[in-house]
């Protein structure tokens, strides 16, 4: 299929979150943090979660090395999950994130997926550290975790190929 190259039509919600991101920055007293993506992808998100003894997300914050869509989706995820039980936070899907930012341009869907991937990694890591996995937490990686891993592996592969090419 021949694709056109229309300007990225970021909607007002994304622009607003890009200009004034919510819950931005490293959290010093986080219960857990997790990363998805890497600088080679041009997309990287870190989530910080503060989780209460009763398993509620008390606070969430993020840092994002990425485009406007990446920043906006990360920001909205931190807002969506604040006050949620971990089980409900786990059930946040990239589709609901895309919806919450008022829709994403199709080439930017992966940004929403990466944001949710980082969130799910953080939740999984939280339980791993505690050594107790609740029954609702699936053992096999979720769709978003798989996608994040794929993007990271692709970037690593390209990086390796470049290093090989340099050695030629």
């Amino acid at each position, binding site marked *: 299929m021949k694709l056109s*190259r*229309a*300007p*990225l*039509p*970021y*909607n*007002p919600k994304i*622009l607003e979150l*890009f*200009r004034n*991101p919510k819950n*931005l*920055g*490293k959290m010093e007293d986080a219960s857990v943090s997790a*990363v998805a993506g*890497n*600088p*080679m*992808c*041009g*997309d*990287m*998100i*870190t989530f910080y979660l503060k989780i209460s003894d009763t398993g509620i997300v008390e606070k969430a914050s993020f*840092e*994002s*090395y*990425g*485009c*406007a*869509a*990446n*920043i906006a989706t990360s920001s909205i995820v931190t807002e969506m999950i604040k006050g949620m039980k971990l089980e409900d936070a786990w059930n946040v899907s990239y589709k609901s994130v895309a919806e919450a930012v008022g829709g994403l341009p199709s*080439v*930017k869907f992966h940004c929403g997926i990466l944001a949710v991937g980082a969130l799910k990694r953080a939740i999984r890591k939280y339980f791993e550290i505690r050594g107790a996995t609740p029954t609702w937490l699936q053992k096999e990686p979720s769709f978003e975790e798989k996608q994040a891993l794929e993007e990271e592996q692709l*970037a690593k592969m*390209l*990086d390796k190929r*470049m290093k090989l090419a*340099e050695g030629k």
Partner: protein
Amino acid sequence: MVENVRELLKAHSGLKREVYFDVENSSPVPDEVVEAMLPYYNKVAYGNPTLTHKPGWEAFETLMESSQKLASYLGCRNAEEVNFTPGETEANNLAILGIARSLKEKARKVVISEVEPINVLQVVEMLQKEGFSVTKVPVDREGFVNLEKLREAVDHETAIVSLSAVNHEIGTIQPLKEAVEIVSDRNVETVFHTDASDAFGKVPFDVQALNVDLATVSSYKILGPRGAGCLYVKGGVDLERILEGQIGTQRLWPGVENTPAIVGFTKASELIFQDFETNVARIKRLRDKLVDGIMSIIPDVELNGPRGEKRAPDNANISFLRCEGEALTIELSLSGVYVSSGSACSRRLLQPSHVLIAIGRKFDQAHGSILMKVSRVQSEEDINYALEVIPKAVDRIRGISGSTGVS
């Protein structure tokens, strides 16, 4: 979709100043060029130049004068060597496809460099599917073509070599004369094409002195209107048309000539060449001020491409580490500074700039790269404004990355 774009535009209201550095991708046409063009829409020369009436003859006269002027700026032997096309993409397609098709029975090899513009890369990819073999000559860390590898790549079956005179992204001025000599030494029949769109009006460029066979020039890259460009074709070089239709004054490009655009293209050339040295020196001084300013104010930045005399005077290409390029283009736009980025995100191909990767930049360096071209219409104040806005924008975007994105 257009609703979203309207909202994005609203977010720009109240800009103090607007500074356009994205000459790589389009350009504003200065008033004096627009004024030169306007009469040609409805006052004079609006006829078809091949027809037998006054507006047609006027158009014919206008086009002949335009080709003569461009021929003199390019150093051609005569005006017939200038072939107008609708732009750089079309001229590059015509050059490469036109030669490949004309020589396909005896020569089926094409040689380009790793850092050619996208249109050249895609044309040769198409030729590859048609059974041509394609060699991409590597470049060094400043973007200079490896002449030894060029020598190895050319043989008795090479139909065409296409090398840009000046790299469109990082401003490397290629050793074109040496490259032409090497190619001709290997195979005197190989046609040498150069995309000179980033050389014309910016560095000395003379088709006879360089002895190239074909050369592409773009109108908008010298602040002429879009919709015009030309391909220099040395007398005696035979290439096929790539589009068919009614042929007018331009033997290689069918259809009705875009006289007003060609007039604007010619006017834009005149404005540069009437005082070439002064224009270029001024652009270079402003570019140096921009680059030196950025490099001294902002930490963790890297200039992409060569420094000094081997870099085109208008080009600035800088990687801002820990700063994603697309986010930076949007942030700068909201302050009225317009640039483009080699980031994967802004290119929509999800692959960063092939030029930056070819010179050995890491992916994160390419993702944080910004391309700016200083032009004739810019002032000292424009550069000062950019130097005020860019550090703030980089700071804010780096603030969002925090410790994330440090490799």
